[in-house]
């Protein structure tokens, strides 16, 4: 199973995402923003960071990178021959997905006007996505969150649509760290192939380097995020 991780200028968590894919048992493949070729990978992770410095708007410039045209084309609505390329956008990657209109809504500046780094409790609400099928419904986990512009925003109709179609993948518990509407931490497209998530599961895949905080369904050693990556291995196979 080959999972590609895109490096944009200013990507930061790309090496961490590659490591997470490896720990999960997949084959990590580095992808370069300036290439249209995605090297035939089975799935793609758009990593965290500050692509192009996050100047203008987060993800706005990265969305026009050559590699994104290919990803947008392959990840688009499913066709008879293809269920759509699975894509996980983490933090800045989530912002790129919204700017690319692969996911609805947008991410705006944190309500408290500060960058925040914390161990964040989440509830996994949708488990029939490529990226969350190894979690149980309503599992409570802890993964790091670190962002300055992580507030998920959309109009009422879009929010109602997301809720109605069960497309909220993860929700913040205990603390809403950035003013996200309806405590939304992550959403998916209709088919569950494309997922955007503000917190960082790739930073909770190795014992000793993840969060110390625990939740009801925590693994106990700070590796609650690993299942995002093991899910993809599973999900791509059965797709």
């Amino acid at each position, binding site marked *: 199973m080959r999972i590609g991780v895109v490096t944009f200028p200013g990507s930061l968590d790309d090496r961490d995402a590659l490591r997470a894919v490896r720990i999960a048992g997949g084959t990590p493949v580095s992808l370069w923003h300036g290439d249209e070729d995605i090297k035939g990978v089975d799935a793609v992770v758009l990593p965290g960071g500050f692509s192009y410095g996050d100047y*203008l708007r987060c993800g706005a410039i990265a969305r026009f990178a050559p590699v994104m045209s290919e990803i947008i084309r392959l990840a688009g609505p499913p066709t008879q021959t293809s269920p759509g390329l699975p894509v996980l956008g983490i933090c800045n990657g989530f912002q790129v997905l919204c700017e690319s209109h692969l996911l609805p809504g947008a991410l705006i500046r944190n*309500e408290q*006007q500060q960058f925040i780094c914390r161990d964040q409790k989440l509830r996994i609400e949708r488990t029939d996505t490529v990226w969350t099928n190894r979690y149980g419904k309503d599992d409570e986990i802890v993964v790091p969150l670190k962002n300055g512009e992580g507030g998920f925003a959309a109009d009422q109709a879009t929010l109602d649509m997301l809720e109605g179609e069960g497309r909220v993948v993860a929700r913040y518990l205990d603390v809403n760290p950035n003013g996200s509407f309806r405590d939304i931490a992550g959403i998916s497209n209709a088919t569950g192939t494309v997922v955007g998530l503000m917190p960082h599961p790739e930073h909770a895949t190795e014992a000793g380097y993840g969060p110390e905080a625990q939740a009801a369904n925590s693994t106990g050693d700070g590796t609650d995020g690993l299942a995002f990556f093991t899910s993809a291995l599973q999900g791509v196979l059965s797709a």
Partner: protein
Amino acid sequence: MGRVVIDVMPKPEILDPQGKAVVGALARLGFKEFAGARQGKRFELEVEGEVDQAVLDRARQAAETLLSNPVIEDVVAVRAASDQE
């Protein structure tokens, strides 16, 4: 050399955390008469030569594809910069 000014503001119905912070800070400094505040962006683009309608059309296109995100923002103005600006 000409200059185009493009103004982009958060959509009224979308939460504007920066605007909210601005009203709060204004009130704390005693500027209580300002009951609301919104914070957007102002771009200035430079072109060789005159700013004519063709340039303005291109600038609007740039504003709508790159400089604003239609989900959360409106392009409120695209115009030639006046001389004092």
